[in-house]
């Protein structure tokens, strides 16, 4: 028992150094991981699908898929895993870390790019490096899916208008016969520049870094 515990602690320490989370945060995440996996070492899609909080979420499937997407592991691999271990779980959670006060502008830019990359991967389901009109339409449809019956036409119109906007911002002068292939990552960055992802795409929970703070917070 003792040996395995120290081993786990070492693993945690290693993870903490690699990802930038504090030890406490890694421990909390591990607890949650065990809860989700039913005390196993890996979780599969079924484990995540059981989460009640995700039931009403319109983009539930994309979120679950994102955990298993190999692109988010930054290993250079593509495709989708069937199960993930704790390390991969933490890696995905890494994308939601807030910026610290000590970060320089370059660090913030890098963080922003990483978060945008995560979003891009969520949209680009066929991994061809661009978000085509169909993929974008799917995104909007999913967003509007739980909002009641508005019909696919509205979703299509919105997605078309959005695509038009991306094209006009990034490639202002196109001949009528030219074809805008799809949103590349650079264009994606460009259009979402105003949103300041590094400040918005964060989870507060991960901000807790002293042990006294999580007393009373539900797990």
């Amino acid at each position, binding site marked *: 028992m003792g040996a395995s515990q120290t081993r786990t602690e070492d693993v945690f320490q290693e993870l903490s150094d690699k990802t930038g989370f504090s030890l406490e945060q890694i421990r909390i995440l591990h607890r949650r991981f065990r809860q*989700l996996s039913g005390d196993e070492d890996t979780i599969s899609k079924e484990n995540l699908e059981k*989460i009640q909080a995700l039931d009403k979420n319109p983009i539930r499937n994309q*979120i679950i898929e994102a955990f298993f997407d190999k692109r988010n592991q930054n290993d250079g691999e593509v495709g989708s895993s069937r199960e993930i271990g704790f390390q991969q779980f933490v890696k995905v959670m890494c994308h939601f870390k807030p910026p610290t*006060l000590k970060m320089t502008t370059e660090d913030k830019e890098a963080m922003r790019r990483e978060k945008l990359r995560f979003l891009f991967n969520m949209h680009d389901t066929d991994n061809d490096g661009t978000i085509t009109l169909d993929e974008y339409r799917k995104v909007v449809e999913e*967003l509007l899916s739980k*909002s009641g019956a508005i019909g696919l036409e509205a979703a299509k119109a919105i997605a078309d208008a959005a695509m038009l*906007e991306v094209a006009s911002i990034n490639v*202002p002068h196109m001949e009528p016969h030219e074809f805008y292939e799809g949103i590349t990552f650079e264009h994606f960055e460009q259009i979402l520049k105003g949103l300041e992802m590094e*400040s918005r795409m964060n989870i507060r929970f991960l901000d807790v870094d002293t042990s006294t703070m999580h007393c009373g917070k539900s797990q």
Partner: protein
Amino acid sequence: MALSCQPLGSFPPRLSVCVLLIVFVAAASASHDAPQDGTHDPTNVTHKKGFPVLLFNYDHVRTPFEISLWILLALLMKLGFHVIPRVSQVVPESCLLIVVGLLVGGFIKAIGEKAPALDDTLFFLYLLPPIILDAGYFLPVRPFTENVGTILVFAVVGTLWNAFFMGGVMYGVCQLEGGQLASVDLLSCLLFGSIVSAVDPVAVLAVFEEIHINELLHILVFGESLLNDAVTVVLYHLFKEFSAVGTVTVLDGVLAVVCFFVVSLGGLLVGAIYGVLGAFTSRFTSHTRVIEPLFVFLYSYMAYLSAEVFHLSGIMSLIACGVTMRPYVEANVSHKSYTTIKYFLKMWSSVSETLIFIFLGVSTVAGPHAWNWTFVVVTVVLCLVSRVMGVIGLTYVINKFRIVKLTKKDQFIVAYGGLRGAIAYSLGFLLPDHPMKTLFLTAIITVVFFTVFVQGMTIRPLVELLAVKKKMETRRSINEEIHTQFLDHLLTGIEGVCGHYGHHHWKDKLNRFNKTYVKRWLIAGERSMEPQLISFYNKMEMRQAMMMVESGSSAKLPGLISMQNIQPKVESRGRTIPKISKGREEEIRRILRSNLQQTKQRLRSYSRHDLFADPFEDMNENLSEMRFRKQRVEMERRMSHYLTVPANRQETPPVRRVRFESDDQESSRESSGVRARNVGPNSSPADAISVLEESPPLRPNRRSDGGARRSAEHGAPATDDDDDDAEEEKGEPQTQARRVSDPGPN
């Protein structure tokens, strides 16, 4: 300097300003002399005088006349500042207005009249509400709720700290100084501290409006200025009551804390109730659109007054009312009412703000003053010091709880932006005849002047110097809206995976509650079910459409991106032209080409031999030129839409339909139809195809009356019946010409 660039013949602005001042002062003084004239008349009646052609009776219009004159003066001043460009860039408007007020006050005093002072009824009941309503109604809710914790801490704890620190230190200084100040007791000092410690929304708005800093800082300072009203009200009343009595017990302290919660939450509740009432009323106004804006204004004002009745926080009530009402009202009211509301609010708040600053200047000159160097200087210094200490201390604590920490630059701006303004002055004015009242008033005025002038003027260069992030001016795009919503759901989902019920979880729950229950009650008709993304999209489309119509030119024309750039693949996929043999294809093409030529010939012959001149060509030339531009846009849009949507059999090409509709239907596409025809030979394949659409369907309508709508089924080009049609077509060119000459009153 500015005079040299004035166009010839225009009145130099500075001279006109002076003239206005003199005119105004003369009128103001004349108003005081007027009463005497009225009394002469009765005595003259007994003599046999002629019928009085001209009478002077100023008395009964006096009050509205003076009010109007003041407001007119204020607005002319505002105009004047913008005519002199250099000054308005360096000095914020509020400073200039105070200076004008000082001048006017000086004039009035010089003449020996009594200048009107900024009395508290006028200020709190008439001048303040429009500004707060404007701020509350247009409060950016998202940044506000994201930072509400920080804002509350600054507002409540910060103001308390300021009040007590200042009161305490002032007391100490007074005791040390002795002399005139020795009689100032602790409670009076605390009262003074509570008056002067609150950040003023009017001053903050006035100054921050012009520097355009980023949203976060703006909402922090501004939100604080709004929410500290509750604290100010409680402290003020507490100390006012007890400075008369002389002591404060612990029980009183506890009661004060309870009072604080009652005041703030009560104010919010009153505001929310009126907000819901207003939203509910707006649900039924679809038949009386004209009075819609009035409901918004009146319900909000009632919220303010009702809160004031119970000594609750009127400002918080007003804010709550505006914020609650807004999403539902905007979904219910017409676009024109929305514009009216927006402009009226901006107008009133602008006038109020101007008047407040001018009156501040006038009151300074008018009011009794008791200058004490120590007191005043210490007050000013203490204000700054306590503010800085408060902000730094609180930020240290707050940053532990914030995701995005506040940097030193942010802290500096928050501290430096803590301006005091007219509220502090009015509260001082409200003091019952306290022995130290004039002393306090003088000190308050000095602090206000210092913050508005010194801090107001220097904050802009400082913002530039420190390279503080500015506000992004661009309007939100549809992509940003999509991704904001996407992010919301994503973060809620991730929180769910983490098992943490945080900020996003509760926001999501609130949204869902709002959607299922509240919206159904408060929004009329089917808009209650409309998701936010769709309403945003509709608004955007409408805005773009209006912009297009207004500009009259085609902003979205090809050369820029249009739908066909995005989906040519779809186009090729969707336009499955049925496979026919090469020979057939050639034949059809030949037939159609000749048809096209025939059609054009018919057109030409029509115009040459026809008795009636083409009205579009001659009479309405200019009009249709303008309309043409507009409709060309429409047409391009339709055509490109047509290209990308698979050839639907039901769909009638707009160009085609035009030919056979009578003119008095005033289809706007008519002129474009005529034009499009003439464009024929040079057109892109798109045009040819749509023209192609025209020829076959001529057949069924030949027998019907001119102006009949074409029946829809025969839209598909290149069907097997084509050669039959072609034969018939060739055989009856004359009928065609007659048909063509029929439509409407040419």
